C-alpha cells in the first residue's frame, strides 16, 4: 500500500495539469459559446445521403415534421 505515497502526489500533478489545460482552453475562448457546438453538429448537409422517401416509407426522415 506504500505505493499510494507516490501515486497520490502523481495524481495531484495530473489534476494540476488538467486544470492548467482547462484554464488555457477558457482563455482561448473555447467556452465563450456554450450552445453553438450542440446545434451545429445537427446541421449537416446530409440531405443527399438520406434515402428517398419513396424507398422506405417507414424509416423516412421526418422531413416536414418541423412545420414553420
Amino acid at each position, binding site marked *: 500500500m506504500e505505493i499510494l505515497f507516490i501515486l497520490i502526489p502523481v495524481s*495531484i500533478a495530473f489534476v494540476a495539469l488538467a486544470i492548467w489545460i482547462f484554464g488555457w482552453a*477558457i482563455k482561448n475562448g473555447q467556452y465563450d459559446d*456554450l*450552445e*453553438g457546438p450542440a446545434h*451545429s453538429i445537427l*446541421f449537416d448537409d446530409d440531405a443527399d445521403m438520406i434515402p428517398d422517401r419513396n424507398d422506405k416509407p417507414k424509416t423516412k426522415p421526418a*422531413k*416536414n415534421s418541423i412545420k414553420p
Partner: protein
Amino acid sequence: MPETCYHCDELIPRGFNAVLTISGQQQAFCCYGCLAIAETIVSGGLENFYQHRTQVSERPDPFNQSQQDEIHLYDDKALQEDFVTINEGISETHLSIGSITCAACIWLLEREINNIEGIHRFTINHTSHRAILTWADNECSLSTVLLKIRKLGYKAHPYQDDLAKKQAQIEKRMSIFRIAIAGIATMQNMMFSLPLYLGGASSIDPEFIALFRWVSLIMCTPVVFFSAWPFLKAALRDVQTRHLTMDLPVSIAILAAYSASSYITLFSSINLESDVYFDSVAMFTFFLLLGRFFEMQTRHKHLNSDVEFNQLLPATARVQTPDGEISKPAHKIEIGDVLIIHQGQTAPADGIVLEGQSRFDESALTGEFLPINKTVGSVVNGGTANVENTILIATTATPKHSRVAAIIRMLDQAQHEKPQTVQLADIVASYFVAFVLVSASIAGVFWYFIEPEAVFSTVLSILVVTCPCALSLATPTAMTSVNTFLRSKGLLMAKGHTIEAMNSTTDIIFDKTGTLTEGKLQLSNTNTFNQMNESNALTVAAALESHSRHPIANAFKPYFKEKANQVETTLGYGLQGSLKGKTYRLGNIAFALNNVTPRDKIDEPLGVHIFLSEVSGDKQYTLLAQFELSDTLREESLSCVKSFQAQGIQVHILSGDHLNSVQHIAHQLGIKHVKAAQSPEQKLNYVRKLQQENKEVAMVGDGINDLPVLSGARLSIAMGGASDITKLNSDAVLLNSHMSVLNLAFQSANRTRKIIKQNMTWAIGYNLLMLPLAAMGMIPPYFAALGMSLSSLVVVFNSLRLKS
C-alpha cells in the same frame, strides 16, 4: 383557415399572391420582402434552413435604395478606422446581428457568408449573437457582407469592444473556471473521503488517514479561496451593509468547515473521532456556483448586451460643403454643419430645416405613427426618418447631445431611482440565517458548560446540517423552470424580480402604439354622399393615393384598380387628380371642399378622417365620401384587457398619440384611465404619481419614448417589435405579438410563487427538524451530506412541475 406566410408565419393579406417552390412544394408568402429572402436562401441551396429552424423568422423591414447606399458607406476607410483592425491585408471586425430567432438562423448566415469570395472566417456566437468577421480587403468589401446579411432578413451593425464588455467577458470566463476548479476538487475529495466514511478506523492505517486529509486540504484550498470567492465577497458586503442574505451562512459554513478541518489536519492527533469536511466544502461550493451560473445564463440569453444608442442614429451623415456633397462619420458632425437628408434616410443629429419641405416619421421618438410636416424653420430630431423629399438641415446639436441621447440619459436616472424589489427568498433567508446563527451560538454556549471540547464540532455540524442548500435552490430552480416555460411561449424574462413583480401588480399601463394595436391605419368606415356608391368611392380614393407615400395611402392599397393622372400633392392637406375625365380631391375637409362649409351633416370625427370630393369645371366642390381610418386593434387585445380587469388589475393607456385616436381604442377596449399626447417626462410623472399612491405599476411599451417610463415602472415589458435598446432595458420581452402570453405569464407567476413557497417550507422544515438533532450531536457527517442532497433533489423535482 387563413393562410400564413411560409417565412414569417404572419397572415397573408387578402388578394396578395407571391409563391415560390421550395423543396418541391409551393409555398406562399405575406410580402415581397419575405419572398426575396426565401429566394436568396433557395438560390444559395440552403432551403434546409426551413426544416432546421425551430422558431419562425422575423418579418423583414422594407429595404430601400437609400438604406442600401447607407450600407455602402461602411466601405469608407475613414469610417472603418473606428471598428476595423487590419493585419497584413486581412481586415477584422466584430458585428452585432439582429433578428436571429434560432440556431438555424446562425447556420444559414455562417454558410452563406463563408461562401462569399474573400471571406476568411465568419462565426457567430449563439448566446451573444455577435460575429467575428475576417476578410481580405482587396477581394471583397464589408458592404458586400452587410448587404448579404440584410438580404437574408437579418440586420448587422459593426460594434466596438469597450472596457465594460471586455470586463463582462472576463467575468464569464472566470466563473466557468471557478466551476471547473470546484468540480475537479469535488471529485478528487470524494475519492479520498469515501474510504474514511466507509472503512472506519479498523481497516485504514493512521498514516493513510493523515495522507488523505492532507491531499484533501490541498485540493480544497483553491476551492475556498478562488471558487468560493464571490460568496465570501458578498458576505463581507452583507456584514458592512447589515443586510442578511444567503451569502453569509454559506460563507460561514464554508470558512468554518474549512478552517476546522484544516485545524484537525494540521494539529490534532490522528483519530477518526474528529471528522474533516473538505469534501462537503468543495461539493457545496460546486453546486452553488453551478446554480448561479445557470441563473446568469438564462438572464443573458437572447439579450444582446452591446446595443447602444448609437444604433438609433445612423453612423454616417451626408454633409453639404462648398465642394459639394460629402459623407462624414456621424460622430464628427459639428454644430452648424448643413446635413442633407434624402427620402428614406434617418436624421443623424438634431437640426433646423434650411431648405425644402418634407414629412418625418417620428414614431421612434414619440410613438406617433403619422408623419409630421417639416418646413423651413421646423426642428428635426435625430433618429427620425425622412418620408418624402430631400431637405437640408442646419445642425443645432451633435448626435451626443441630441434629443435621443437626452432620453437615454433620463433612462439611466430612472433606472437608478427604480423601486428596489426585495425578493421573498431574501426575506425568508434573512430570518432563517439569523435563526441558524443564534441557535448555533446557543448550542455552542450550552456545550461549553457541559463538554468544552465538543463546542467546535457541534457548532460546525449545526452549520453544515442546516446548510441552506435546498433553501438557496428553492427560488432559482422554480425561476429557471418558469423562465423556460414562458420562453417557449414567447415571453423572455430578463430580470430576476419579474415573477415577484407580476404577483403584486395592481396597475398595468399600456402604451397604445404597437402594443394594443397593429400600428398601421386601416379603413374602418365609409360614408358616401350625393349618390356615390362605396366601391366607386374607394376605387377613386385608391387611384389618387397610389401617388402618395403617406401611411394613409397604405390603407387604400387593397382597393387599388388603376392609377389616377395629373395628381398634385398639397403638403399636409391632400391630393388632387383626375380619373376618367373627372377631377377629384382627397384630403381633409377644408381641402376637399375648398373651405366651403359642407351642406351634408358630418359626424364628429373620431380617429383619422379623409374626404373625397369631385371638382367640376366651374370650381364647384361636391362631397362624395367620408373615409374613417383607424389603427386596428391587435386580435387578443380585448381578451387580454378583460382578463387583467377580471384579476382586479387596473388597466391604463398612456400614449404619445393624439387624444382622438387613443380614446377610440380605449373605448373599444373598455379602458377608463386614458392619457393621450404624453411626452416621455409626463409618462414618467404619471407612473411616479401612481407609485406614490402605493400602486405597483407594470408598463408595457415599445418605443424609445417609453424607455424612461419603462425603467421607472416596477415591472416593464417590451414588445418584440421594440427597438433593441428598449428590450435591453426591460424586465421582460414579449418576443411574439400575442398578448394572451401576458395573461399566461401572470398566471404562471402565481403558480411560481406557490411552488417557491412549497420549496421553502420543505427546505426550512427539513433544516429545522435536523437542527435539534445536530445540536445534540446525533447526526453523522455522511448522513448530513446525504440528507442535504435528497432535500435539494425534492426541491428541484417540485420546481420542474412548473414546466408543464
